[in-house]
Structures are given as structure tokens and as C-alpha cells.
């Protein structure tokens, strides 16, 4: 059975290559900062389970210090010039989209065809991680397709990958760090405390008030925690369940579903949902770190109001 561990090894090797290529990149004045940073990420993927909890903690501390003290630069691997790219685009035309299309096709193939396959009674792919394993497989196949079809140099996936990785920079690790912070918050009982504060200070005798507090609370709590999954148990235990479902007799499916989607409105508005909001800004090389959030707020706020109305109308 192919497990997620195989994917971690692949990721570890790719990050290790980024680290080595960074170390020898004389065009980057901070090349050793980059080399150590991506080297630590590679270590985490290759040996994270052997480091122990404290070892992993020290590794994370290292990542944060390198980023925090501005020791990360941007590598400058040799690449094609804008003029060359125009000429290549002219030459290859629609072929250029093939690798990008191979990626989703292989993901779907993995999920629909490979996932159900069993070898000697064991599934071929770990069923819990089938999508991610398929994605890793698809990344390899699509890269190979690009190399062959577009006749690119053999080192280009690693060099160009490193260029993009440096473009994202420290933001690449922020989602994983925030997930870890969420775990510390949970240990310290932060969620329950905020939930108690909300429920004990706002009177919710009227149905509309209770619906509004639940939906806005889901969104607000998600903004603070960066994740609707963290907000849902707290807000639903505090308001959704005792007041909306048991008190006013609301339909649990409607309350839960629209409550969660109210949380998603919060996800659109918070820098703590880094993989959706900050990483794309880095990836698109936007000077304003919060540009994507700013583009989303005018959709998120009216949608939140719509959720309050929908829950009020549909749940009772």
C-alpha cells in the first residue's frame, strides 16, 4: 500500500534539492539563509517522525527565526527572458496547457481508478490520503510531460520550482505553523473560553438575535482562529445546539450547514487563513500582503448577511 509517507519522502527530496541549489546560487546574497530554511523543511519531511516532539519544536523555532530576522532572499536561477517566452509561446501554442491539464486528469484517475484497486487484500493507496497521494503522483507525471513535450532542460523543474518557492518564501510554511498554533490554542482551552464569553454576555431571547449571534459568531471566531473547523464546535456547543436547535426547535442540518458556511465567510476575511489568503498574494507577487483579502471582503460580508437570513427562514 502506498502511504502518505512516500509522498513525504518525495517532498523532502524536492525541498532538499531546493536547499542545495540555493546554497550554490551566487546571485542571491542571502543564499545560506534560503539553504538552511528549505533544508529544515526537507529535514521535517524526511525525518520528522524521528526527531521527537522537542526536536520538531526546535526545527520550527529555527524556521521562524530565519524568517523573522529577514535572512531569506530570493534565488535567481537562470531562466528564459520575457522575449524568449513570447517566442516559445508562439512556437508551442496550445501545447503549453497540456501539462497543466494532465495534472487534474491524473488526480481524477488516482481517485476514481487507483483508489478502489486492491492488491492482495490491501488497497493500493491509503484510502484516507488517496487524494493527496494522487496529487503527488499527478505532479510528477505533469512535470515529466512538460519536460518532454516542451523540451525543457532536465534541471528546470527543480530550478524553476525553487524560483517559485522563493517567490512564496516564508509564507509557504505559515499554514502549517498556524495549524500547529491551533493545536496549542486547543490545549490551552482558548476556544471554549471565547465561546463562554460570547454566550454569557449577549441576551438571546429573540430567535433572530440568536441566529445572528450564531452566524456572526462563527464568522468572527473563524477570523480569530483562522479556521471554521475550530469555530464550529465552540459556537455550536455554546449557541447552535442549546439555543437554536433545542430552544427554538431549529432543523439541525440547516443550522449546522449554514453555520459552517458563515464560518467560511470569516475564512475569506482573515490573514490567519494563510494558505487561501496570504500564499496566493505572495504567489502572484502582489506588493500588498492583504490584497486578496481586500478583494474578498465585499463578497464575504453580504454573503454573511444572506446566511443569517437563509438560516432564519429555512431552519424554523
Amino acid at each position, binding site marked *: 500500500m502506498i502511504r502518505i509517507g512516500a509522498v513525504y519522502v518525495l517532498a523532502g527530496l524536492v525541498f532538499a534539492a531546493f536547499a542545495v541549489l540555493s546554497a550554490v546560487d551566487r546571485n542571491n546574497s542571502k543564499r545560506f539563509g534560503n539553504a538552511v530554511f528549505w533544508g529544515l523543511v526537507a529535514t521535517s*519531511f524526511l525525518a520528522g517522525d524521528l526527531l521527537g516532539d522537542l526536536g520538531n519544536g526546535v526545527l520550527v523555532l529555527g524556521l521562524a527565526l530565519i524568517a523573522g530576522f529577514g535572512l531569506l532572499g530570493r534565488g535567481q536561477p537562470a531562466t528564459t527572458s520575457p522575449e524568449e517566452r513570447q517566442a516559445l509561446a508562439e512556437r508551442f501554442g496550445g501545447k503549453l496547457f497540456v*501539462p497543466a491539464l494532465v495534472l487534474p486528469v491524473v488526480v481524477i484517475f488516482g481517485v476514481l481508478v487507483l483508489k478502489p484497486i486492491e492488491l492482495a487484500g490491501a488497497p493500493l493507496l491509503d484510502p484516507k490520503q488517496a487524494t*493527496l497521494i494522487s496529487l503527488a503522483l499527478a505532479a510528477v507525471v505533469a512535470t515529466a510531460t512538460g519536460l518532454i513535450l516542451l523540451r525543457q532542460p532536465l534541471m528546470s523543474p527543480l530550478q524553476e520550482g525553487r524560483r517559485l518557492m522563493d517567490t512564496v518564501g516564508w509564507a509557504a510554511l*505559515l499554514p*502549517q*505553523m498556524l495549524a500547529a498554533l491551533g493545536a496549542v490554542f486547543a490545549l490551552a482551552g482558548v476556544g471554549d473560553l471565547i465561546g463562554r464569553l460570547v454566550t454569557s454576555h449577549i441576551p438571546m431571547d429573540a430567535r433572530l438575535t440568536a441566529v445572528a449571534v450564531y452566524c456572526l459568531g462563527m464568522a468572527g471566531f473563524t477570523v480569530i482562529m483562522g479556521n471554521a473547523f475550530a469555530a464550529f464546535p465552540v459556537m455550536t456547543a455554546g449557541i447552535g445546539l442549546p439555543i437554536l436547535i433545542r430552544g427554538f426547535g431549529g432543523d439541525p442540518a*440547516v443550522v449546522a450547514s449554514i453555520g459552517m458556511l458563515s464560518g467560511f465567510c470569516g475564512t475569506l476575511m482573515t490573514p490567519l487563513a494563510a494558505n487561501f489568503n496570504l500564499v496566493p498574494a505572495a504567489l502572484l507577487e502582489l506588493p500588498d500582503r492583504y490584497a486578496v483579502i481586500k478583494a474578498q471582503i465585499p463578497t464575504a460580508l453580504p454573503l454573511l448577511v444572506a446566511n443569517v437570513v437563509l438560516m432564519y427562514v429555512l431552519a424554523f
Partner: protein
Amino acid sequence: MLTLLGVAAVVVGFAVRLNPLLVVVIAAFVTGLAAGMTPVAVLEAFGKAFNESRLITVAYLVLPMVGVVERAGIQEQAKKLMLRLRGVSVGPLLIAYLLFRQGTSALGLTSIAGQTQSIRPIVAPMAEGAVESHGGTLDDAERQRVKAMAAATDNVGLFFGEDIFVAIGSILLMVGFLATAGITLDPIHLSLWAIPTAIVAFLLHAARLLLFDRARRRGAAA
């Protein structure tokens, strides 16, 4: 109450734009220490959770493919495609992508598109090309707005599509949580009740995209 200091550290740290990785580590220590943990215990808890969350960072495995096609000119080709498709302006282009993203997410196919593999190499350049082919000029601020809108469209499509699929994490979380409270629900009901919000999300964002489009053209005419 002291436990909330960690939350405050996050809010302040992000507001003053301190490096977010540093903010996160500081917030973890503030929270843990306020809750009576030792510094070593905090570091251990943080390291353990970091190691268990490696899944999240695996997504960057698509970068080498994106880099290869960019090196061969995919962004230029995407832009050129829109110059040829003169009839399609930025509003309808992004609405079509929104529909695609929301529809495929609703079928559980959340990984077939995304910020890294779709928005950066293809959709954002197409959006830029669509604005330019309709007489819009793109200064830096304007280019940033168009790219950010393309990224936002991917998120809106993903978030308000995925919850219609039965086997997605959030649905399973809801079913599990309600089960502990003695309420047994068929996941399909949670999926179905995600549809009204999905429709409103589509209409709202599509309307914004049309207004966005019109504003770009008014800028072009002026």
C-alpha cells in the same frame, strides 16, 4: 482570561506586520505559558502539531510543473489567448472560472484546480489579457487588483462548492459533532442545505465581477 493574550498577540502581530512566522511562535508561547505550561512543554506541543500537519505543505509539489510551463511561456500564451478571444471580457471570464471551480468542488474534485496550478500560470494572465483586449490599460495598481480578484474568485468557488460534496472534511466534522450531542444526521442533508448559500455566493460574486468588469472599461473609455 490570561489565555486570551495569545489571541491578542496574533492580532497585534499581524496588524503591525511583524513576520507572521515569528508572530505564530510568540503567540504559541504566550498562550502556553499563560495556561501554565512550561516553555519546553509548549515547544514540544508545537513541534508535535507541526509534524502532524505536514500534509498542508505537500501541496507545493506542483510548483516544479508550474515552473516548467512558465519557463516555456504559458503566461504569455494565456494572455495571447484572451487577445484572440476578443468577445470575452474579464467579468464573463472569471464568472466562467467561478462556475467551473464551484461545480467541480461540489463533485469533490477540490484538488484539480487551485491558486498555484491554475490562478498564477493561467487564470490571472488570462484576466490581465482580457482587460487589455478591451482597451483597459494596466498600471501596477490595476494589475494587482485584477490578479487579486482572480485569486479571490478561486477561493469563493472552492469554499462555497466543497460543502455540497458529502465526503468533505467539514461535513464529516459536523456529523461527528452532532452525533456526540445525540443528534444523528445523514450527511446528505448537510450537503443539500449548503446549496442555498452556494447559489447566493455565486450570484453575489458574479455580480461583483460584472461591476469590476464595467469599472475597468469605464477606466478605458476615460
